[in-house]
């Protein structure tokens, strides 16, 4: 029997269609059909200047938008061969780790809700409100923040930033303990997730899977440790790994990642260096506002940068970072004009979803929802 788990489905986390061929209750074949949310972001990026592309990058993985911003900007900074100053690097780390926590909170809430534990959804979204308040304090927006710019941040951090984050860092570990109390030793949770959706390490690498799914199979690969960016090599944190590669292990890996992210935020917060929040490179970064309104040269620079943009050197770069879902990479080809010639996004969810058939073929139909949830897909990123 062929069953269509259609694009409109409460558990597919977006518009994902999975065509399931069943033999009784066993899944014989599972074919994901994507493209329902395709909006042509890569093509649109070719018609915008490098700075105008930043809001487009937010909208791909809309749950962890600051992470996408950082990935794009690090690629552009690599192309231009500039570096953000230390203060901007630390602040980027803090905000990206908070985004990681926020993404994992959405994941644990919706995944538990799919399996039936609905309370966790309400608890995790309550915690996420505090994080979104911090994002709103900095950038004015709760979700699609676009707070980073080429060379650093858009504006300096406001007052109250540090107190709010300290409050989160102090109260959060108890909340994670609350979720763990509800789920980790719960017999129903264990029955529904242990041994389900297993993928071996060799298959995972072959299928290009990265992020928490790969770490749950035992491969210790985290880009923050192997190719540190934005100052991650200054912080001490562990990479949680498990060995079984099933849905339960992915859950444990993500819960532990939240704790490690808090550890990084605390270390970064304790040591924010002094300095400017953006690298003041004249042809690329906007001059300070006070100078723009008083000085004619700064005003001319500002005007030209906003209206025309800057021209980076010709060439191509690929840079990838560790997003909450896996390896997100940006491949930018520049032809020396103000608009990028080609921007290719390597979306972690797209590649992780391609391994779905491997994970559920031969299993029961009731496990399909648990496995799709454990891959942590965001359709905006898959379809772009």
């Amino acid at each position, binding site marked *: 029997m062929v069953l269509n788990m259609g694009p409109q489905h409460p558990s597919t986390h977006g518009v994902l269609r999975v065509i399931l061929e069943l033999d009784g209750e066993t899944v014989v074949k599972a074919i994901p059909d*994507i*493209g329902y949310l*395709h909006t*042509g972001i*890569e*093509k*649109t990026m*070719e*018609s915008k200047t490098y700075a105008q592309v930043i809001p487009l990058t937010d909208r791909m993985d809309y749950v962890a938008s600051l992470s996408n911003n950082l990935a794009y900007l690090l690629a552009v900074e*690599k*192309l231009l*061969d500039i570096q953000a100053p230390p203060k901007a690097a630390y602040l980027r780390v803090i905000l990206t780790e908070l985004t990681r926590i926020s993404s994992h909170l959405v994941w644990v809430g919706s995944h538990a809700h799919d399996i039936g534990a609905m309370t966790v959804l309400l608890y995790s979204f309550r915690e996420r409100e505090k994080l979104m308040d911090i994002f709103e304090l900095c950038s004015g927006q709760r979700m699609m923040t676009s707070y980073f710019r080429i060379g650093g941040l858009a504006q300096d951090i406001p007052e109250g930033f540090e107190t709010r984050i300290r409050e989160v860092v102090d109260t959060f570990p108890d909340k994670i303990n609350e979720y763990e109390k509800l789920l980790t030793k719960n017999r129903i949770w264990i029955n529904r997730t242990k041994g389900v959706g297993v993928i071996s390490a060799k*298959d995972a*690498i*072959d*299928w*290009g899977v*990265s992020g928490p799914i790969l770490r749950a199979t035992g*491969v210790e*690969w985290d880009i923050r440790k*192997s*190719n540190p960016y934005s100052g991650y090599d200054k912080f001490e944190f562990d990479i949680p790994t498990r060995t079984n590669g099933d849905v339960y292990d992915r859950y444990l890996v993500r819960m532990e990642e939240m704790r490690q992210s808090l550890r990084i935020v605390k270390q970064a917060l304790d040591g924010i260096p002094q300095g400017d929040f953006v690298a003041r490179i004249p042809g690329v970064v906007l001059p300070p506002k006070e100078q723009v309104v008083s000085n004619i040269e700064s005003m001319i620079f500002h005007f030209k940068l906003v209206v025309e943009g800057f021209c980076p050197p010709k*060439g*191509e*770069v*690929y840079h*990838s970072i560790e997003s909450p879902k896996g*390896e997100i*990479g940006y*491949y930018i*080809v520049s032809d020396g004009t103000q608009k990028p*010639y*080609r921007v*290719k996004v*390597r979306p972690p969810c*797209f*590649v992780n979803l*391609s391994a779905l058939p491997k994970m559920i073929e031969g299993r029961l139909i009731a496990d399909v929802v648990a496995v799709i949830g454990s891959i942590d897909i965001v359709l905006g990123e898959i*379809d*772009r």
Partner: protein
Amino acid sequence: MDNLSLHKIKEKFADSILEIVEFRNELTCVVKKGDIPAICRFLRDDPELSFNFLSCITGVDLPERNPRFDVVYELYSISKNHRLRLKVKVNQEESVPSITSIWSTADWHEREVFDLFGINFEGHPDQRRILMPDDYEGHPLRKDFPLTREEVTFSHNLNRPPKIE
């Protein structure tokens, strides 16, 4: 590490390499398209290089140039922590050998390149569109495919169908 990969490829596939570019500490090798499966298999299986992770396959359209398309392969080795980029130049009617038998993840990436650029991959198990609808005509990421805009609906044009240009 980049020099090691380059050195080994030069040793074994000296006549396949057409160009080598190094930019911002990244190494790009332009190779002949017929040799791609052999080179990829060598890169994956050689114990000193062990490029076991294919990050992505993408395409670039350069319409003024002949051959028109660039197919770019991003490779990474998890154990040795080094990256390599392979590039292949291909024309509109030609096809590139598929490397799905070497890294299974190439399946979806090649389908995406086929969908958005129209480049055929020989030996691909299931080459069909992945992002666009199955009966779509045209390949959106080509430079001669226009970026379409739909007119915004205001109250003065509420009853008309929107203009798409």
